[in-house]
């Protein structure tokens, strides 16, 4: 029997003025979706709480990037928690706390401030953090400042990969990353157990495969799950919200739901669009996008995040390889172009939305370079400056998104 189509369910109206104060948990729980996606929401919403509980129960909890490092953290039987997920729970209060306590300028990226505020609130519950030096400048400086608050922070000096670097120099970057990741292993608890790491890598690749399958099914049946739901799935594709076994089960369940739905689905008239860049917490924006008849046919950054670890390489080398390729941080803007072009061709997307956080130094020029490239090819694009913490989308972003969708339709 086909699964029920969630978009046909009655949606509890959430007015824009409410969103500013609405807790993320409440928002998601009022947001009807497929049974599998509801489980993803639950997993995401309890993520930090489970990390806190793990810490209380004596398990080692490590806040890190949660992208390429989860297999490594798992291999030490530690609980991998992603510090950006702390920010996802944050609201304006966390941002204000960071601004006041650390005297951080208002123009600083909201993602960093939200994370700092949340970390500060939890400074008595855990103190182990990983800082990857290829992350942006605000995060790097923020972690240095947090050391003064007693956090035990290990910096992994991963290199930036300039655009177009290949061959011997690329391998030199990987060599450096490998040594640095070995140092991280020592900090996590001693020499790396290569067999265990290989097992964790294999499991992560297996989950990647399932998530990719979901993406394929979702693109061919975009009415079944919406943008916000998909966003939460991609967010967990590497860190699995700290629960890889359960996350994998959810993927299986969602694949089943989508396959069942496919049997009864009618052709969609939704417009495919590529989402590139960050993924902010202005949930209303994603809902608006769905309401305007769009669907995300490719999440560029997440596409990079779904790059498998090379199981033919020694496991640590595979980890290092993926960090340098760009799994853990953006490289040169131009390196994104082939991926975007491939996505445009494969999904028939009608345009690209570049989403960045206000004040984000990574994304700003990247977007200008990319927009320039695609504009010359006649591909319309829209750059949105949003905020990382939860809240209502700005009127400007709402208006611009509406205009953009109207144009490409």
């Amino acid at each position: 029997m086909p699964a029920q189509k969630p978009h046909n369910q009655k949606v509890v109206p959430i007015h824009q003025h409410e969103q500013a104060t609405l807790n993320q948990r409440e928002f998601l729980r009022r947001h009807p979706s497929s049974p599998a996606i509801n489980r993803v929401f639950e997993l995401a919403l309890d993520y930090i709480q489970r990390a806190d509980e793990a810490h209380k129960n004596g398990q080692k909890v490590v806040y890190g990037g949660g992208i390429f490092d989860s297999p490594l953290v798992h291999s030490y039987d530690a609980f991998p928690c992603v510090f950006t997920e702390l920010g996802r729970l944050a609201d304006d209060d966390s941002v204000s706390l960071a601004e006041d306590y650390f005297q951080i300028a208002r123009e600083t990226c909201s993602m960093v401030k939200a994370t700092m505020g949340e970390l500060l609130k939890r400074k008595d519950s855990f103190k182990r953090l990983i800082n990857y030096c290829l992350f942006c400048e605000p995060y790097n400086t923020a972690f240095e400042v947090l050391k003064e608050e007693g956090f035990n922070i290990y910096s992994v000096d991963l290199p930036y990969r300039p655009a177009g670097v290949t061959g011997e120099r690329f391998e030199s970057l990987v060599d450096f990353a490998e040594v640095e990741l070995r140092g991280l292993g020592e900090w996590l608890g001693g020499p790396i157990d290569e067999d265990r790491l290989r097992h964790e890598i294999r499991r992560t690749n297996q989950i990647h495969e399932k998530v990719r399958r979901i993406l394929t099914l979702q693109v061919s049946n975009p009415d079944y799950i919406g943008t916000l739901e998909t966003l939460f799935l991609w967010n967990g594709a590497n860190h699995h919200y700290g629960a890889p076994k359960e996350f994998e089960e959810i993927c299986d369940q969602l694949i089943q739901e989508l396959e069942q739905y496919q049997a009864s689905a009618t052709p969609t008239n939704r417009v495919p669009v590529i989402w590139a860049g960050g993924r902010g917490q202005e949930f209303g924006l994603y809902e608006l996008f769905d309401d305007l008849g769009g669907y995300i046919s490719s999440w560029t950054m997440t596409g990079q995040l779904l790059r498998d670890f090379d199981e033919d390489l020694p496991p640590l080398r595979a980890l290092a390889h993926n960090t340098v390729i760009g799994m853990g941080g953006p490289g040169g803007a131009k390196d994104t172009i082939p991926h975007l072009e491939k996505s445009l061709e494969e999904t028939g997307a009608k345009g690209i939305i570049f989403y960045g956080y206000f004040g984000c130094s990574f994304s700003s020029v990247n977007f200008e370079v990319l927009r320039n490239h695609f504009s010359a090819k006649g591909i319309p694009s829209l750059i949105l400056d949003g905020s990382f913490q939860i809240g209502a989308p700005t009127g400007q972003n709402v208006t611009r998104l509406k205009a953009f969708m109207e144009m490409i339709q």
Partner: protein
Amino acid sequence: MTQEVVTDKPKRAGYFCIYTPIELITAAGATPIRLFKGGDADTVSSGEVHTRSSFCQFAQHSVGAFREGDPLYTSIDKIYHFNTCDQMKKAVEAIGEFFDVPYQMLCLPREKSRESSRAFMRREVEVFRNDVEGLTGNLVTDERLSEEIVKHNRARLWLKKISELRKRDEPPISGGEFLELVKAFYYLPVEKNLEQFEHFFRHLSAQEDTGERPLRIMISGGIIADGDNRLVDLLEKELGARIVVEDHCTGLRPFYYPISEDKTPLDALSDGYLDTAPCARMKPLTERLDFSEKLAQEYRVDAIVYVSLKFCSCYSISLNSFVKRFQGVGIPVLDISADYSESDLGQLRTRVGAFFELIKKGEKSASTKAA
């Protein structure tokens, strides 16, 4: 095989940040040009076309200078950038993309105390050497490189010695004048500078001390670009204070430590540039704060003016740590979040004036913040 450097018109290699080993450029027979103009709001606006509004104004200005066809900038044959902060890294990518300027992006480790970081930096310096050889067609020999290290060390030493004259109660050179010498280091051939710096040192050393003691200020923080004179002029010309030392990358800081002349030249350059007095981008932050405190104590400053350009994460996020450090040693700090507009000059004048008044009254807890 060694080639003699014989070119009619030397290639011009541009760079932005001080972590670029310029000795390799000169050893290859090219002319290094530091691109550090700033201060013009119109050029910033022009650069904003390709960078968006929430971007450091120095980075925007750098992009804008290419867009506006600044003759110095457009004369550059290639840009070399050891990636320091994100904003400059992305500015270089924008310049390459929008103005077809060739560039080579090189990696700069942050954790400089680690052996792995040093080995990696060494490899990147080799990449740099190979690239600049390709640019000029000249091989860089160890012998030639050692000569350049010695020459540049001598220039650094003269600048440091000139700066040390500012340790006197009445410095014979103003902060504004010292910045002019720094410009000469970055814009003129090193041989010419050696001669001039020595001359200036002799001349300044001979000046007699009249016994006056102006308010002694250290400027710390982000870049004070060539053309961004308003703060220096305000402090020295309008308010009568004296900048006796600069803890930023266009003042004394890059000249404080020499490059080793005992190691093999490439090792010396890769270690020496990693070990230069750190900017806030490097780790750990405590090392940078230690250096700032050392400078402040060494030059017996009465107060510090801390400047961070708007949207400069390195210096704005670390500001609080900086202020706390100096509160601990009883040196007041005034924080200025600066940009290249003229609109806030009046406000700045009022805030700095009030800060100086507090210091003159002996308020050690005068640390404050100017918008």
